Structures are given as C-alpha cells and as structure tokens.
C-alpha cells in the first residue's frame, strides 16, 4: 500500500530524510516512533502530498508521488495534532464542507454515519469553538474518514489530550483500523502505540533504524526495543 525507496528531503542545505526506505502492506497499522527532529512529521507530510520529496521514489495506494498527488489525496485521510476544522462552523457544516471538497454523494447520510462513529451525533449543530480538545480531535478523525480513505496517516494525534480524551481516541482509532484501513501513526506515547499498532518502526536521523512486529516484541517490550534501537 505504501512503498518508499531512498527518500531524501532537504530544506536548503539541511537533509531531514536521508535515503529512507519504508513499506506498509494493506491493512497494517504501523507506529512510526522516534525522537524529536527525527523527521517523522516531514515524512508523513510527504506521504500526505503536502511536501515534495527532494529525491527517491514514493508510491501510495498504487500512485507515484508527486506526479499522481491528486489520485493519492482521494485515497488518503490525514489527522494531525491540529484538527483542521473551522471554529465558526458547526460540526455538521465542517463535515459538509469537506464532503463537498471530496465530491461525496449522499452527503447527509455519510455525515450522520461519521458523527455516530466518533460519538458526536448529539453535538452535530454545535460550533467547533465550543468543543473540547478531545472532541475536536474525534471530529478531526471524522473529517479524515468522511471519504472512506484506504490509507490513514496520524501525526501525533494524542498531543494535548487528557487521559479520558486519549482513551476515547483509542476507541476511535481501533474502529478506524478494524475497518481494514492501512494506518501509519507517529507518536511519542509508546504505551498507546504498543496497544494499537501491529508493527513498530524507529525513525532516527532521517532513516528507519529498526523495525519489529508485535510478534517480534514477545520477548521484550516496546520501550526496551525503542531504547535499544536508538542506542544502536
């Protein structure tokens, strides 16, 4: 579903990604872990078509980037630590806007379905500015899945959430993954990543330094694996 070969991203003279190789099979849930400044967000922005690769090959959902970016965008849902929602519009109006931008047929039924999925049907007519951070993040997931994407990218979705909101987000993420979508998530929260993901990749200094599946981690835990990978 995602294939990346020798990806390089430079900003001026500074290389953020240095020949990164990465691949994800359909239906996998990959947690991309690494220290601050490792290049996780830059990598996700390239996969999301928001940033151009400097060098290398990137293929998402069967389409090459950046040449076929529009086709990729139609199959991609992105959630970042910012909700990408308009505070002066209601939950329904925000979803209507994104539904129009994705050319969704049967918009009202889909919005009802999505609001039900993220548990916000009762707040349908409320302005986003009245939502808590956790509710905004749940609606952000609703926005990202409105067009039923094959691939979901989550960039630090737990940032700024309290315990209750994080647990609610866990449930929503599980339901997103259970629908068979391919998911890539960056996170600093190792416990949550360990709970949700099926594979764990460590990104450090612009390259993937280690990778392990859930089965590989039976002998150890994710924290030990993470620390060991960074030390190596």
């Amino acid at each position, binding site marked *: 579903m995602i294939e990346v070969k020798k990806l390089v991203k430079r900003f001026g003279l500074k290389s953020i990604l240095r020949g990164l190789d990465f691949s994800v099979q359909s239906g996998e849930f990959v947690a991309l872990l690494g220290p601050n400044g490792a290049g996780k967000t830059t990598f996700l922005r390239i996969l999301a078509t928001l*940033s151009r690769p400097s060098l290398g090959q990137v293929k998402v959902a069967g389409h090459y980037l950046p040449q076929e970016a529009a086709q990729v*965008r139609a199959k991609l849902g992105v959630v970042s630590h*910012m*909700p*990408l*929602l*308009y505070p*002066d519009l209601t939950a329904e109006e925000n979803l209507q806007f994104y539904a129009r*931008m994705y*050319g969704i047929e049967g918009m009202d039924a889909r919005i009802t379905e999505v609001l039900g999925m993220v548990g916000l049907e009762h707040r349908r007519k409320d302005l986003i500015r009245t939502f808590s951070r956790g509710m905004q993040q749940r609606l952000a997931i609703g926005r990202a899945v409105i067009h039923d994407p094959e691939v979901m990218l989550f960039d630090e979705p737990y940032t700024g959430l309290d315990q209750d909101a994080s647990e609610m987000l866990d449930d929503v993420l599980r339901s997103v993954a259970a629908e068979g979508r391919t998911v890539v998530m960056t996170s600093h929260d190792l416990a949550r990543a360990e709970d949700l993901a099926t594979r764990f990749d460590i990104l450090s200094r612009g390259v993937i330094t280690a990778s392990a599946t859930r089965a590989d981690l039976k002998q150890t835990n994710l924290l030990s694996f993470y620390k060991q990978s960074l030390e190596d």
Partner: protein
Amino acid sequence: MKSSSPSLLKATFAIVRKDLAAEFRSFELISAMLIFSLLVIIIFNFALELDIKTREAVNAGVLWTTFAFAGTLGLNRSMSVEKDRGCMDGLLLAPVDRSAIYFGKALSNLAFMVIVEAIVLPVYSMLYNVNLFRIDLLAVIILGSIGYTAVGTLLATMSVQTRMREVLLPILLFPIAIPVLLAAVKASGGLLAGSTFAEIMTPFNLLVVYDVIFIAIAFMVFDFVVEE
C-alpha cells in the same frame, strides 16, 4: 458511499460558501475592515479641512487609500484563519485542482471587500458631500477590487507562512498592486471630476488588462506558492 473529485467550479464555490458562512456567524473580518475604513475616512475628513475644490481633487485618492488598507487587513485575516488552525493543510489535502483553492479564497476576499465598500460608500458620500452612486464609478470600484484581491490573495498565501505576515503583506502587495491602484484612482478621479466614460477609457482599459494579467499569473503560480 461513492465519491469523486469535484470540478474546479464546485470546489471553488464550496470554499466561498464555507468562508461566507463562517464570516456571517462571527463578523470578525468584515467588522475589522469596516471599523478601520470608517476611521480612515473620518480622520481624512478632519485632516483635509480644505476648500471644496481641493477636496474634490483628493476624493478618489482618499477612497482608494481606504479600500487598499482595509483590503490588506481582510486579506491577512482571511488567510490567517486557514493557516493558524492548519486548515490550509485541510484544503491542500482535498483531491481538487489547487487553483480552486486560489479562486475560492480570492472570491471570498472580493465578497468581503465589496460588502465593506457597499457600507463605506454611502458614509463617504455624506461626509464628503459627493455622489458616488454612479454605475460607471461602481464598475471602476469593482474592477479595482478584483485586481487588488486577485494579487492580494496570492501574496497573502505567501506572507501568511512567515512570522512577519502582518508587515510582509503590505510590503509585498503595495508595490505590485500599484498599476491597479493607479488606474483605479485615475479612472475614479476622472469620473468624480465630471469626465465622461469615454474620457476615462484609457485607465479603465488598463484596469481590465491588469485584472486579467494578475488573475492569470496567480492561477499559474499558486501551486508553487503552496508547495513545501
């Protein structure tokens, strides 16, 4: 559930509809532009305690100074809303031609500018004792506003990505918008001085040409402006 990439027109109007709905709920942008415009014309009214003849000569200049400054305020605010909450990424993630984002934002900005102008013009007419409600003058104002928002939307998209956006936008915009502002002032000034439409054809035609050029350039380069 079926979905397909919307046409340029549908995506453009989805953005305009969203911007107008959000603005008519908060009135943040229009009220800021309006208060600023009214303050400018009132201050000019007191500052230019001149004889009637001199006042008539500066009418077009005062009018366009007001529109240009208020327009800059609106452009900055309109793009900040998209940038500050990451909504620009939301727009860029949609499977639409990115020109739709430019045209949508430019049309919204134009609508806000025209709304403010529609309120400012009667107040200006009363304060300066001049009749501004003439179809030819209104056509010049609309054309000038189109040119200003066409180039302003593009430059606001660039400047909003920097930390100095409030300062950077006027620095970038005013030198580039000079041809539009000059032609607009010249055409408006001529009409207010009693010239016929035929006599102001040169600045009027220039205004049309600049509008077309600015829209075409913005259409061609917007993709590169929003790309990382």
